[in-house]
């Protein structure tokens, strides 16, 4: 048995070596970044463990790691379609948070993009809607909580609504700006080529031309929406969710748990942003090489 494995290892030794050397090259290239993060952790550990010496006031790095292990080892029952499953609570929390986030962001896209488009394309509609939008926009998303509860109730859609409020304006405004900024020469070139109706011009010229601006709006909107998430889960829209767990841990004075949820929220936000950026730059906006949005 062992002999067989050794044989395989022997056969694949070139590949294995090349993987290792690739890792070493990468580590070498990123040595400054890695060192920076590593020293930050060391400083944090020293301050927490030897200066503050209070787990409630500032959990140390190791406290946080142990808290994280404790959190992922907790299970909950998940019953879907008659199936009873044991899954980590953290998994359910992630699922719920992403669900609230998805509801809010999708509705913001579905409403923000069309409104921004028609506002940017038709001057009359801009004059009709612009002042209204400018009046509602400065209201902080969290100020909508009371009405969200009264109108929608304590359910996932109320949390989605808050995220929607946070996300819809960046999307709308950026779509609008993108449409306003469509270069006249593209519109005229399209007209001369036989693309004449408003529908066609929007579909074939304005929309692709405004896409970089819309994509930038979506990125901002995702950031704002993610920030609204914790507040949206605060007022009890469900029994799961990263924000909800954070508030509950705070009530239970488990500050190490609070810190873990904070970090998870941060990393998840980063991940979502990176995925979006990868998709947008790599697929959607290949034609704008070298331009960072």
């Amino acid at each position, binding site marked *: 048995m062992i002999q067989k494995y050794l044989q395989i290892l022997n056969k694949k030794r070139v590949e294995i070596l090349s993987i290792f050397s690739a890792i070493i090259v990468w580590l070498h290239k990123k040595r400054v970044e890695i060192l920076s993060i590593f020293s930050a952790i060391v400083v944090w550990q020293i301050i927490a463990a030897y200066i503050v010496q209070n787990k409630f006031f500032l959990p140390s790095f190791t406290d946080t790691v142990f808290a994280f292990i404790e959190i992922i080892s907790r299970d909950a029952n998940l019953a879907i379609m008659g199936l009873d499953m044991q899954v980590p609570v953290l998994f359910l929390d992630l699922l719920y948070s992403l669900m609230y986030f998805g509801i809010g962001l999708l509705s913001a896209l579905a409403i923000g993009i069309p409104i921004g488009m028609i506002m940017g394309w038709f001057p009359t509609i801009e004059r009709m809607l612009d002042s209204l939008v400018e009046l509602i926009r400065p209201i902080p998303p969290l100020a909508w909580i009371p009405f969200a509860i009264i109108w929608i109730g304590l359910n996932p859609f109320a949390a989605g609504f808050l995220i929607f409020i946070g996300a819809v304006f960046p999307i709308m405004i950026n779509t609008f700006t993108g449409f306003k900024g469509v270069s006249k020469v593209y519109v*005229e070139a399209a*007209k001369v*080529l*036989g693309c004449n109706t408003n529908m066609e011009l929007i579909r074939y010229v304005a929309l692709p031309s405004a896409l970089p601006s819309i994509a930038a709006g979506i990125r901002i909107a995702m950031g704002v929406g993610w920030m609204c998430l914790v507040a949206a889960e605060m007022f009890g829209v469900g029994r799961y969710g990263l924000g909800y767990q954070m508030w509950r841990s705070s009530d239970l004075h488990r500050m190490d748990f609070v810190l873990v949820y904070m970090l998870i929220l941060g990393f998840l936000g980063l991940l979502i942003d990176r995925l979006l950026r990868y998709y947008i730059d790599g697929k959607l906006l290949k034609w704008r090489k070298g331009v960072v949005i």
Partner: protein
Amino acid sequence: MGRLKVSNVTRRFIKDKNDFVLALDNISLDVADKEFVCFVGPSGCGKTTLLRIVAGLDKPDEGEIFLDDKKIENPGPDRGMVFQEYSLFPWKTVIDNIIFGPQMSGIKKKDALEHAEKYLELVGLQQFRDSYPYELSGGMKQRVAIARALANEPSVLLMDEPFGALDAQTRNILQQELLGIWLKKHITILFVTHSVDEAVFLADKIVLMSARPGKIKEIINIDLPRPRDRTSLEANVLRDRILKSLLEEQKK
């Protein structure tokens, strides 16, 4: 056919209530089928405005323009246009830019592609078929713009200082290429330029315009044999005459 008749076209640009600029003042002009006409004049003489009215992008205040006895009201695929600014859609590849016009008139993508390859070959950019405009040089961009305009098979090609932003060498090469295309395709070309040199090299007929109000000052037939020699004595005599006439205009 690409017979163009401009009759009594006037275009005013309103500045404010009582003030306006007379960009075109009662212009009449006949352009025969397959003729190469260059418009030369000081800046602000309305040559671009005239071209835009022919394209259908602007409307005259008075007068009308007929293409083969059909009145021009809107932009249409029977008139192709090449702009001075780079007007390729940056989000489309070269080939997708070229098939844009045919696709708009409802031709299936497969047929449009087949058709577009020919025009790509005509401007000699086959190896840039799938490149995006940002990957092309200025001269290549204008070549693609010409191919894109031709893909609709227009009877008139309108060119608004298409080589104005290019360096002198590229400019000369593109002028040669344009003449080649013109001979192959047999279409009418209206070409706006501020370069007398370019006009003398290209045109059958040069329309010399004067500014404020924009009027036709003189129409000069260029009977030099083709292919033309840029430095021949006859060309120099013509250039000299046109430049002097232009200078008079600028002094006014």
